[in-house]
């Protein structure tokens, strides 16, 4: 089912094509594409030729380029896997093709390169988007039952096991 979403955060198409924002809930963000098969090859070739000319002359963003320091890159990667993409929402920014996910990756890499700790960057993002944006729920009044649950389950399990053995010995 497809419908026009009011709030579009889309990948921009290349400048010679119109991007149409069809954003169904069950699809990832679409990229504008050529409509008619006939003009497709030409469209692609034109796009390729555009690449040859440095049209924008801006520096490459860190969205898809690694940091030079492997330890910092590992930290950045680990953090990216725990931040939710605000557009597609079903994936982390480390796994998403959406433009804003790329911007977040670039932001995370830049800040970690500048020396910030991953925890600090996460806190900065939470300050702006709320707890929804982190897949690692911080310990708080609302989340302590969640973090306590595994312990409770293990204790309950041990109790059941013990009672089942004890019953056996009596029975």
């Amino acid at each position: 089912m497809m419908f026009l979403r009011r709030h579009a955060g889309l990948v921009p198409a290349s400048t010679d094509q119109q991007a149409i924002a069809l954003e169904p809930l069950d699809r990832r963000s679409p990229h504008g594409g050529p409509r008619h098969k006939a003009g497709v090859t030409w469209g692609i070739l034109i796009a390729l030729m555009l690449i040859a000319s440095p049209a924008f002359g801006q520096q490459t963003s860190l969205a898809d380029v690694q940091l030079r320091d492997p330890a910092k890159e590992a930290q950045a990667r680990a953090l990216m896997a725990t931040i939710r993409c605000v557009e597609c929402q079903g994936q982390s920014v480390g796994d998403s093709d959406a433009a804003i996910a790329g911007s977040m990756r670039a932001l995370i890499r830049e800040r970690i390169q500048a020396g910030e700790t991953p925890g600090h960057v996460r806190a900065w993002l939470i300050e702006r988007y709320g707890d929804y944006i982190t897949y690692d729920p911080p310990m708080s009044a609302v989340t302590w039952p969640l973090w306590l649950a595994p312990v409770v389950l293990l204790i309950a399990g041990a109790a059941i096991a013990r009672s089942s053995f004890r019953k056996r010995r009596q029975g």
Partner: protein
Amino acid sequence: MKRALLWLPLLLFAGLFALVGFGLLRPADRTVRSALTDKPLPDFTLPALLPTKPGVATSGYGGGQPRLLNVFASWCVPCKAEAPQLMKLKAMGVPIDAVATNDTPEAVRDFLKAFGDPYQRIGDDRQSKVQIALGSSGVPETFLIDGRGRIVMQHVGDIRADEVDAIAKAWRDAR
């Protein structure tokens, strides 16, 4: 005791049923809103995107007059739908600034020529840094910043014709 324990699974299921039933009744709101409402505008400076208009910076706010900050892009379709409403707000005297996210000067110039130019200042946010710093999750979004430089309201999505008056009123009240 053992007797009572046998009913525990049913009880747990009843709890689960109530939980998901509740989840069903509340329609899930998928929009991610900024957490900065009622907080001061974060510090940022954006260079001018076009030579004809100044850039946007935090220093331009908090001078006593509330302003609207509109996050938009030329490739965003609902932004085109929103443009007439922004022109109407401009006609009512509401000052509007723009953060052009992930965009180029040429594309924005064409957009403004085609759909009207309601902006007093336009900032070049090519890397979407300021968009993220504001807690915005997509385009278009509009923030109302009051005279003291605090974010008072966030409007997610394009502004509809019937929402113009409410926004204008909020702007007047934000003094």
